[in-house]
């Protein structure tokens, strides 16, 4: 396995492990919110916010100048306004959307990265934690043989601090519907309608594990990769017997993985097959997607969990290839909390049937690993988009007061995966694919134009409409191995230097001689005495001097291949964040130059040989740059007074529309005239 491959897998493995714990514990009985209908107070003003993840200010400006996107241009012609939107530091979606949700920066809401580290961890695996949620198991259990009976409910906790804007609106009697906003899993307690978005796990509790059944030898290590598992199957007499893995059975002492068997019957000549799964029978032609299929995983005789998944028959012969999407939480019987009130998800399911509930439903892992090709990935993401549009239409149709926030993920996901085909200098550029898919990103921006059109049709003169993104986008051509750099610069020490390339999760680190380490996607931490378990550097002047020294060196680092600086700015956290919740903050936050990003291996304590390396993966666009070079967008049907508003300004602006005073911890200002 190449280092590159191994690294990319590790990151996802982390995600998987993090959320897996959440779900496994939550299945034991997560807290539920009271399904009450919120008593509504009618407000004169209304507000629709369309959140389009990752829409880039530079791209948008260029395309608008070319005369694309008729609705956006019409809105601007008719008195609307368009500004760059200052993103978060770092510009990662959980951080950025938390800025918007709370009206604070990470110093207030305490989400600094996708990944946090546990400085007191005693083993490499528990060193890294998922920043957004944690799970607490049942406090009391009894054991009967090999069965564990929980006597109390478990709990999944949202780790974001501060009040969400819809909670503030609720206190003021303003109704709100908040649809799939990221960083809201589990949804914070509220009587408003909210549906969780990014960070919502699949039924296995992972970031999204697809299953791939084939009799072809697969070179990719899927299982370790988080994102996919390959099942070697045999076609015997035109018949395939296989199992679909489900969540871990936390009712058993040995915590086995649940399994549901299924059969595939291939026609001897036609490129079609019949699939039989728990009494459901359906036929798929080659290169055809099934609709949602419901699957029940039995835990103990009285307990089971229900999930939903999609099947895709990629090939019947000469090789058999069947893809099954990650098993999503069934919105009709949610095993984990995904909405407030709990009935909201069920209501949507009754209206639309099963729907995508996993945080980011586009299966980027399947594309990265070659299980789905570009066309197949887009077919899947088109289903996501189609569903999003239908649900937006549904919510708009009944929207008559208060605030509606509606989120789109496809903008972000398609830019991550297709940037390489818009940039001939990208290491993963492919001219043939570019000819076919080079317009995908512009295409999804065009779809957002249609979403805006739907919202504007609903808006009357009292309705403020805002389109916003959380950050911009740029190429990810070169990866920076922060930990390798720290090692070479003498700030980090390995116990067995000859095993550098195999190191992961800091399992080879000599903490007694290490002064700094990189963890997460933008974070650098000092191994501080008293804070870290084996801290070395004294807090105060010693640490401050070290922080300044490392920051200066990082900002001076140039890439020998391009001659460009890899890091535009190394931000000293205590100087840039406001708020009382800095205990999990990195000491330095890296602000990368355009085209650069943290490498695949470094975030989880890996040490590849090279400090800088080409990114040859299909995951080719990203957003970890210095915030000033990566603004998002804000477009409104009102004039925007501020030249460059920030995400947290929009929070205060939303409250201001309804005459709600901003809570004192919010740091933003109203930006509309």
């Amino acid at each position, binding site marked *: 396995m190449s280092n590159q491959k191994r690294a990319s897998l590790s990151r996802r493995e982390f995600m998987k492990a993090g959320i897996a714990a959440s779900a496994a514990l939550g299945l034991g009985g997560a807290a539920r919110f009271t399904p009450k209908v919120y008593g509504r107070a009618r407000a004169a003003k209304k507000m629709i916010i369309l959140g389009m993840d990752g829409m880039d200010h530079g791209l948008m400006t260029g395309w608008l100048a070319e005369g694309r996107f008729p609705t956006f241009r019409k809105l601007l012609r008719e008195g609307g306004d368009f500004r760059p939107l200052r993103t978060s530091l770092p510009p990662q979606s959980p951080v950025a959307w938390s800025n918007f949700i709370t009206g604070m920066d990470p110093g207030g809401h305490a989400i600094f990265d996708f990944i946090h580290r546990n400085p007191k961890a005693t083993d490499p695996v528990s060193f890294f934690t998922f920043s957004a949620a944690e799970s607490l198991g049942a406090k009391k259990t009894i054991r009967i043989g090999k069965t564990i009976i929980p006597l109390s409910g478990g709990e999944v906790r949202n780790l974001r601090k501060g009040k969400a804007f819809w909670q503030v609106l609720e206190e003021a009697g303003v109704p709100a519907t908040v649809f799939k906003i990221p960083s809201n899993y589990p949804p914070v307690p509220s009587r408003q309608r909210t549906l969780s978005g990014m960070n919502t796990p699949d039924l296995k509790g992972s970031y999204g594990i697809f299953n791939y059944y084939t009799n072809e030898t697969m070179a990719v290590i899927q299982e370790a990769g988080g994102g996919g598992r390959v099942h070697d199957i045999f076609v015997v007499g*035109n018949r395939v017997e296989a199992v679909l893995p489900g969540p871990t059975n936390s009712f058993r002492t040995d915590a086995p993985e649940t399994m549901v068997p299924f059969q595939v019957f*291939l*026609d001897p000549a*036609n*490129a*079609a097959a*019949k699939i039989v799964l728990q009494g459901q*029978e*359906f*036929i798929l032609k080659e290169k055809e997607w099934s609709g949602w299929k419901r699957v029940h995983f039995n835990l103990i005789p009285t307990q089971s969990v229900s999930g939903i998944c999609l099947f895709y028959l990629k090939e019947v012969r000469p090789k058999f290839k069947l893809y099954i999407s990650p098993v999503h939480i069934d919105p009709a019987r949610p095993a984990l909390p995904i909405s407030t009130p709990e009935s909201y998800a069920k209501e949507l399911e009754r209206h639309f049937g099963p729907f995508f509930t996993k945080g980011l439903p586009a299966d980027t892992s399947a594309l990265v690993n070659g299980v789905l090709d570009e066309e197949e990935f887009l077919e899947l993401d088109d289903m996501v988009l189609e569903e999003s549009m239908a649900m937006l239409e549904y919510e708009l149709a009944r929207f008559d007061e208060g605030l509606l926030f509606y989120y789109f993920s496809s903008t972000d996901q398609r830019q991550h995966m297709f940037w390489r085909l818009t940039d001939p200098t990208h290491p993963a550029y492919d001219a043939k694919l570019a000819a076919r898919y080079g317009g995908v990103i512009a295409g999804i921006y065009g779809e957002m134009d249609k979403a805006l059109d739907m919202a504007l049709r609903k808006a009357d003169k009292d309705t403020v409409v805002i389109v916003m993104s959380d950050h911009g986008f740029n190429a990810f051509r070169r990866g920076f191995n922060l930990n390798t750099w720290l090692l070479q610069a003498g700030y980090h020490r390995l116990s067995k230097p000859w095993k550098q390339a195999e190191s992961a999760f800091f399992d080879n680190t000599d903490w007694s001689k290490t002064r700094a380490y990189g963890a997460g996607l933008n974070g650098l931490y000092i191994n501080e005495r008293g804070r870290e378990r084996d801290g070395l550097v004294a807090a105060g002047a010693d640490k401050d001097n070290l922080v300044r020294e490392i920051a200066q060196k990082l900002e001076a680092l140039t890439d020998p291949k391009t001659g460009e600086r890899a890091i535009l700015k190394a931000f000293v956290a205590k100087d840039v964040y406001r708020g009382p919740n800095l205990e999990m903050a990195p000491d330095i936050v890296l602000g990368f130059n355009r085209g650069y990003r943290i490498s695949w291996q470094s975030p989880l304590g890996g040490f590849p040989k090279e400090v800088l390396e080409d990114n040859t993966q299909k995951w080719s666009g990203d957003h970890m740059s210095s915030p000033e070079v990566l603004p998002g967008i804000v477009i409104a049907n009102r004039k925007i007074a501020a030249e460059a508003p920030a995400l947290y300004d929009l929070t205060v602006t939303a409250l201001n529309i309804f005459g709600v005073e901003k809570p004192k911890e919010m740091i933003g200002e109203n930006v509309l005239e």
Partner: protein
Amino acid sequence: MGIVNLVFGWVVDIILLPFQGASPWFGMAAVSLLTSLLMLEVYKLTSNQAAIRRAKDRIKAHLLELRLFKDSMRVTLRAQAAILKANLSYLAANLKPLLVMIVPLVLILAQLSLWFDRAPLGPGEETLVKVGLEEKADPVSLPMELETSPGLEITSPAVRIPDEHEVAWRFKATAAGPGRLTLRVGGLILVKSVAVGGKPLTKVSSLASRGSLWKQALYPGERALPAGTPVRSIEILYPAKSLSVFGHRVHWLVAYLILSIAFGFAFKGVFKVEI
């Protein structure tokens, strides 16, 4: 069997037709009420009412004995034996009416399943049609063709499964209304009805089969397939239907049994029936 099915089908249809446009609960309540009244009458006529009353009285008397003489092991044991004996007498007295009622009841349940077990396809909905073949027939070499009436469309090639003696197709309902699938096997033509759309309570026949009397009784929705052909059955996988109570789904059979029992007990006094 065809005539019996026709008669029972006609009776159930007459009962349910007025309720087609309403919630299925109304039809279910009506048919439960009428069948419970019918069964009460049948029970009254075919059971030994005196023996049943006697058995129940004995059970009550010995239960009283148990309570009064609970300190006497001997009396307690004797009372328990007597209760057991009285119970057996009660069951024996019920045997004849049960045997008499079971036949019409099965036929009624088979008819009700046509109305309550499966929902018709919605326009735009896809499902499978499965053709079951004789064990000797080879689905790969057997020439078979499926044709649809307007409003239906075949959306997949045939999937032939020799191990299961089955050929399946996927088809799509494109418009509401009754449809037909025509299966050509060699020179033989077989027709299967398809229900698409319709009122909340619509009769749906999922299986056309040939074979035993028992199968014909259980699947009375269509005429039996002709004998002497390689086709054993033609089945359409309609979506399952259930009754809804405050958002919870209840199987129609459970609803029918509960309602019938409730009506039976409610009216046993009126009909002066000892159950």
